[in-house]
């Protein structure tokens, strides 16, 4: 018994040192050396393409906020949550308030999904309100991605279809012809990795950066 305890205590110290700190410190060291960019969050001038941003907050002179850029998927917090709060106080998550409906919760930095069940009345209501929101922006047939929250609440990508349905909105606000926007989306579309892993996607930071470069 005493021997067991002594052994355990020594083991705890050695194991914590080796498999916790040594493993992680060497991991950080080598990662920083070999993959400096990735290891620090793949950060570029305008943010990280891995983390969704608040595109709906973009000021578009003469047009509704955000209509001059492509949007991502709704967030669980922020005004989307405010929409939820209006309809169902029980499921209201307090938010920073500065967030916009259709991007990940970039400000708080915390991740989260709605966790609403498939037969949730709240999810149904929220979805209906998001459909209405999109229709208000001139997107008549929003795709499922655009009215549902992602698993992380930080999804930086949308599908090419999700981008296509926004062409009319963006074209209207920016004056860039639809065909040119279509070509831009095609150009920015990543095919599935290795051709079959996951699905084709468009990264919003890349797409909107390219869009800004056009205008």
């Amino acid at each position: 018994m005493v021997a067991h305890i002594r052994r355990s205590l020594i083991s705890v110290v050695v194991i914590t040192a080796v498999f916790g700190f040594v493993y992680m410190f060497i991991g950080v060291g080598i990662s920083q050396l070999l993959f400096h960019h990735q290891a620090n969050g793949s950060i570029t001038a305008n943010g990280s393409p891995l983390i969704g941003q608040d595109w709906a907050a973009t000021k578009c002179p003469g047009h509704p906020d955000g209509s001059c850029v492509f949007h991502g998927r709704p967030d669980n917090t922020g005004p989307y949550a405010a929409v939820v709060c209006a309809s169902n106080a029980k499921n209201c998550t307090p938010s920073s308030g500065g967030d916009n409906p259709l991007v990940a919760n970039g400000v708080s930095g915390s991740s989260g999904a709605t966790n609403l069940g498939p037969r949730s009345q709240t999810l149904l209501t929220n979805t209906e309100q998001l459909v209405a929101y999109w229709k208000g922006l001139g997107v008549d047939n929003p795709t499922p991605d655009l009215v549902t929250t992602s698993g992380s609440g930080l999804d930086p990508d949308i599908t090419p279809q999700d981008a296509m349905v926004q062409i009319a909105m963006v074209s209207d606000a920016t004056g860039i012809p639809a065909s040119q926007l279509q070509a831009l989306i095609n150009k920015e579309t990543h095919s599935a990795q290795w051709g079959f892993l996951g699905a084709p996607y468009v990264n919003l930071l890349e797409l909107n950066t390219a869009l800004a470069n056009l205008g």
Partner: protein
Amino acid sequence: MGLFLTILVLVVALGITWRYLGSYMANVFEGRVRYLAWAERPFYRLIGTSPEQEQSWKRYAGSLIIFSAIFLGVGYLLLRIQGSLPLNPQHMGAVKPALALNTQTSFVTNTNWQNYGGETTMSYFSQIGVLTVQQFVSAAVGIAVAIALVRGFSRRNSPTIGNFWVDITRCMLYILLPIAFVAGLILVGEGAVMTLAGTATIHDALNGVTQTIPRGPAGFMGAIMQLGTNGGGFFNVDLAHPLQNPTAITNVLYIWLTLSIPFALTYTFGKMVGSIRHGAALLSAMVIIFGVWVGFTSYAEHTNNPAVAAAGVHSTVGNTEGKEVRFGDTSSALFNVSMTQTSDGAIDSASDSYTPVGGMGLLTGMMLGEVTPGGTGSGLYTILVYAIIAVFIGGLMIGRTPEYLGKKIQAKEVKLAGLAALVMPLVVLILTAVAVSLHAGRAGPLNSGPHAFSEILYALTSQGNNNGSAFAGLTGNTAFYNTIGAVDMLLGRFAIMIPALALAGALAGKQIVPAGLGTFRTDNGMFIGLVIGVIIIIGGLTFFPAVSLGPIVEQLSHGKFW
């Protein structure tokens, strides 16, 4: 098509792993791999043991319990005082007592249930010195128990079943560490963060938004958390987070990491008992159940979410609620099924928002006792328990005292196997009943209707099976759920491990009966069928009523919303 090719890649990769990692692990545990002996030996000397000093099952279990208990205590303490410890750039405060208890229990039991939001609760010190360490240790402890049980079969008239200290050391040193290290580098290369520099704040000139990006040593933690079927840790949304699971490639790599050891252990088993066919038989039983569950869950997730459909949105890309675009519907389902059937419990999409049948796939995957392939080690020792029950019933049906690998299955073995198989359903059902009966328990669910029941049932099933996956709508960070969850996880882990070790001891002491034509074959299709039958029947019969009040009724309630 993408799903099939993804599966094909996984099948090939896992096939190779099964053969070579499986064989390698057998060599490690039989002491034939020595290249790190220079590191091993001093450690054994330090703690006063050696590979030659074998233990009886009781001493083995004693070492395991005391070791785990001390780790539980030390980890709890570290979480409580994390505010005063270094490596805390975000100045996280102490973890509250109930949460610290739940969290450390969760990591010691290989559950990795998260009642905390990783990036908002844990300091780097805690992530590294408490959580990551346990991801190595708890996996190694599980594997050690499995190996001890395998020795029970492979040895003849032996009073000992191995040395606990040597087994966990070799496991961490030769198996977990090298693989995790290489995988960690690949993950970082693909975009997983790996830094101790704290959050980054950036300003996007394009939209005028300032954003805080959480960072940390997520890449290497992700590697070991998946390899050890731990499944939780760094971020609140776990592997749905783009900074830990940035691409479809990392998604598949995580699946491979998770499935590799549990599947390969069947080869290790086959090699150690001298019959690869026996390992392949268990593998087949695992793969068949796993395949069926992947099939129907992916199919269900390829249909639209009922609420989204009711809102008038048509979907050709399945249920997108809670899923990331870069993974897609079916690969997300493949991921979550892989994680619920391995006791890993990581998610890359919100399980709570799965379709009723999809959610049922995840829930029932755990209810089958985490054996297909189950957790690192725990999957093998638990399926061996089921195999013993299958052998017993099947053996009777051919008119012989049942034997498995030449070991007679008699009253003692049936008692221990029965006990091990009994614990999980018993604990899960009773604790769920407690939770739904008390005000504190009823306060947990986010959703209402049958889904509320599903959330509670899912939480206690997950913890009772040391899985850690969650219908995350449940507010688990309460004194009630933290405590009940800790009880659930401890019983689900140790109340199965101890009988499994006792079984190892009982079997090791036995004579080996040579097989003949009259012996019940335990390496053919019929046996595979019987093992599958026992797994499905024990899980199915015990949980059918409960599941019928959750996902089943949800599925049958067309057009109804709560």
